[in-house]
């Protein structure tokens, strides 16, 4: 991996920018992304799609909040766990609310033609 200097959008300060090869992105995928997706999917019972979204959200948070000097992998694991638990809780609450208050077709399948026509 090489590092090129780049002028920041704000002007003035020069910041480092990495040039990353596709092999490195592939290695990143295997060594960091997929283990976290597996954790979210198998430990927290998420679908693979939800697990992928959770890990990407964790990466977005990492850019802003993570301190790379303090066990970054541990930080990511913790964030993925929290986001997964939140997502499951949200899904469960949604399902509970739908069961109690949702439209009838949500609970008992599609409406009959009579119901659909307002009983006319």
């Amino acid at each position: 991996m090489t590092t090129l200097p780049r002028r920041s959008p704000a002007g003035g300060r020069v910041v480092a920018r990495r040039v990353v090869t596709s092999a490195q992105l592939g290695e990143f995928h295997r060594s960091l992304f997929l283990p976290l997706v597996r954790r979210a999917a198998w430990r927290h019972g998420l679908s693979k799609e939800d697990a992928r979204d959770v890990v990407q959200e964790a990466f977005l948070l990492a850019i802003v909040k993570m301190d790379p000097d303090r066990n970054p992998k541990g930080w990511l694991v913790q964030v993925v766990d929290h986001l997964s638990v939140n997502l499951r809780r949200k899904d469960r609450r949604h399902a509970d609310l739908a069961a109690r208050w949702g439209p009838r077709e949500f609970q008992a399948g599609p409406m009959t033609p009579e119901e659909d026509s307002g009983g006319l």
Partner: protein
Amino acid sequence: MRAFAREPIEIIPEWLAATRDVEIATGLSCEEALLRASKLRHLIREGRVSPKDVELDEEGKDVLHALVKLISETATKQGEGVAREAERIHGFLREIDWPADGFAEKADLLRRCAIAGWSERGVELDEIAKYRHDSVCAPDPDCLALGEGFLESITRGAAVEEAVETKTLFSAAASLRARADDEPLQTLKKAAALHQWLSARSQAVGSLDEADLLLGIAALWAGTTLRISGHFQQANRWFDLAQERFLRVVNSAQQFAKLDYARATVLYQQSRCAELVPIFKALRSRFEKLGMPNDAARAGFTEAMTLASLNRWGEALEILEVLSESSVVLADGNLHAVVQVYLATSLAQLRERDRAEAAYATALRSVASGRHPIVAACLKWSIGDFYRSLGDAARALYFYRLVLTDYLSIGLRTLAAQIRLTIADVSLELGRDREAEQEIVWALPILEEEGLVGEGLAAVSLLKESVRRRKTDPRALRELREHLRSNT
């Protein structure tokens, strides 16, 4: 590529930018993985697949996760034979080589499998933790003797029967714990022998995660004895091994608390005191919450020692006064003696000379009634320091020489070399230059042999040169002692 392997986290922004508009592969779908896992489960049950046959690509890893999920769900629904199956799958997973496991996935799978197996046997996880803690920390004398005999046999390399009961192994672990403070070198040999014996076993040890627990305990005590004898780097390597094993153990909060304590004591001995006060405080409360009063008392004592090292004698005294009256400390001869030593030292520092001398006398009585040479040596070292701080160098020298005799009698050469340097320092103060030279001449080769002084350390060269000229350089001697205090 190597730089990337060291710090993959830095690549996150590039990864997100590169995958913004493309489909990201996430491995097998959960449904497909579960389907393949049920086939693998069937093959394992019939013994038609070996761990070496498992392809550990991304799909293979998904299948193993699915397999553990299957066994966990079966365990909660059915019952019959699932415990045995969990044990079989646990053994299967343990044999799989899992390279570059940065997220400890294998340990996680093993732990979840063990949880399924133990739950299925009808035992609560808290009960397992309690049984294990009691077996190792509060064994009866018969168990200790049993464990001691077993350790003697494997250390000698004598033939031991293949099927050893788990109880014997727990007794061996208890014996390591009981002897570590008094006989560090022998305990190190025994702990290393136990670790080697467990690692080399082809036959399963105990059920489920017990092998990992015992390997972790053996590594923990090997590291602790090395820490006691002043070999900190090696100690940390053993602690890393212990951590790797404890990750695979169910309900391992107690083990991790002990491991964290062991690592913190290494930092203490490296004089990183300022950062340690809150750590020991937190450890003390963690031990209390986990129902480990002995360990809580030890953590409290180490917190007091740390405060003392920072010259916060008043705060140290507060903790020590509470500890010296607690039933846990009174029941533990070793701990009681060292608490008295520090109590006395704190009083001495706070200019309460009479109370200090009384506390030293209590400590000496306490040490004399037991058989704890290391504690006795520490006590005498502290008494020496006490008299030195009062300006009584001759009496300090007398106690330092007693410390030297104690260390030599138990074979702790490194610590003996270090006290020799202290003796040299005091001898110079008393104008006994020839004695000082002699002590330095004895100490330096041992310190060099043990790798405690770097080749380029100026203080060593200066000291050697000054001794050769028969005019010892006290500043070089002091620098060397400072160096040893911070690096050993």
